[in-house]
């Protein structure tokens, strides 16, 4: 089962936390070393952005309906002093995490999302969100949101809330 996408998941999970876009590009570059760089055209389906406007919660970072939260089971950091991609002040991001694949209705693309936990304070207790699209049981950890992903943070391993960091787009048909 150690396929390339698993490798990608594993490496991006440990990278997402402190990786700038620039260095993620570098990591992707390494991953692609030796592969032909064939351009690929994403399909433009369109017409979903309007539908999303009619369902505003799909674009509201403080709503569990927000498109990129499709595999969060926990408290939304955007309701706890953080944002979709930032941990609340005084908390510590988890260096390891799980991965989701979510559909963005605004551009009709699927994105790979890293869900990091923010750690070191007790439960935020606000905006409890339980979505599990493509979520798998704990024995498949890279796709599991039941694990306390703060668990490797040592003394700062208490779970506070979860963020969702876009890693990249998933091409249609994958």
């Amino acid at each position, binding site marked *: 089962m150690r396929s390339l996408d698993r490798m990608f998941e594993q490496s991006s999970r440990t990278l997402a936390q402190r990786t700038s876009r620039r260095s993620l590009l570098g990591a992707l570059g390494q991953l692609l070393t030796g592969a032909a760089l064939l351009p690929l055209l994403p399909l433009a389906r369109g017409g979903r952005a309007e539908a999303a406007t009619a369902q505003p919660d799909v674009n509201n970072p403080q709503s569990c309906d927000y498109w990129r939260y499709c595999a969060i089971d926990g408290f939304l950091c955007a309701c706890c002093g953080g944002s979709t991609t930032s941990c609340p002040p005084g908390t510590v991001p988890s260096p390891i995490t799980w991965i989701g694949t979510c559909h963005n209705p605004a551009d009709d693309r699927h994105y790979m999302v890293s869900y990091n936990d923010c750690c070191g304070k007790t439960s935020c207790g606000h905006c409890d969100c339980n979505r599990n699209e493509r979520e798998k049981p704990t024995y498949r950890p890279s796709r599991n949101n039941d694990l*306390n992903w703060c668990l490797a943070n040592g003394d700062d391993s208490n779970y506070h809330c979860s963020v969702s960091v876009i890693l990249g787009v998933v091409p249609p048909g994958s």
Partner: protein
Amino acid sequence: MRASALMFTALVYLVAGVPVRAAPPPLQAEQLSVQKLPPPNPHWIYVFDEAFFNEIDARIHLFDGDTYQRLGQIDAGFSPGVNLSPDGATTVVATTYFSRGSRGTRTDVVEFTDNRTLRVTHEIVLPAKRAETVPSLFNVAYSADGHFVYAAYITPAASFGVLDPEHGTVLGEIDTAGCQLVIPSGPNRVSSLCESGRLLTVTLDAQGHEAGRAMSAQFFDTDHDPVFAQGIKSASGYLFVSFLGEVHEVDLSDVQPRFAAPWSLVSPAERGVWRPGGVQLGALQRALGRLYVPMHKGGEGSHKEGGSEIWVFDAGSHRRLARWPVAPLGLAPIVAVQVSQDEAPVLFAATSAADVAVLDARSGRLRHVEKHLGQTPWMMLN
């Protein structure tokens, strides 16, 4: 009250044994005590409350399914694993504390509570590797003879600790790369669920060290229809239910697990429409041979939704015997079920609204709803 009044108080008290006129005698002075538990009965249930909104404060409520009384509480720390000893005399809690409540020095520990007194009798400090995940029977577990306790470790690398509960020691750690959790069988075997859809079974020697290991055949498909990482105890092992409702019966009575041909909770027409869901998603009444599963209508990703109905199956013929919708009973969706193993069995059903319902396990008749048995009661043990 004036000082002179106090003398009256005392005097009235002192003469209380002597009735004067028609007045009833005053109530006697009372003695403060600590309640002793009555003898256990089969309808006792240990309700685990994760207290998800205040997660450092998880606890277990001991509840009586006959009198509908709360009998006491066992505190359980942060995101614990919980189980009972085979004789029911001990509750084992594997948990994590921080020296400053939610932060500071982390201590992972297994605590043993005497179920007669609800006092912690002793503890075993673990390496800081304990699996912190949703409740299941497999986060911490006893061997069948009670001589070993197994604690699941996830860092996220997977392994488990072997503990000696009697002497309060850690005997060792066994690596289970790619396989997780502690599914006990017999006096000295531990199986783990593998990412590959197999079971790894490690056999221990008398010192709790690895004596051998075996990997089973693949019995489910992790990508397309994984089983829940929660088991339903059967006479010879566990039933594992898949997201789409396949039932995998695993017999762990021998060194190599035996897998019965899977059967389905749903008809072909229901498949992918009706699904099992929740946290503790099944209970088996072993004498009656009845399996209870909370079921809901939902799509991919709905596997943590509670059941809008409880479906009842004959575990032998796999025939569905009943569907018990819970909304007409005033209940929110069911996230956990457990059943007593006596001759007049009761079914316990915990809801997403944190209530625990007590039902007649034969008829489904609602006997009682205990409101707000904690914040998030996600597993029940008996």
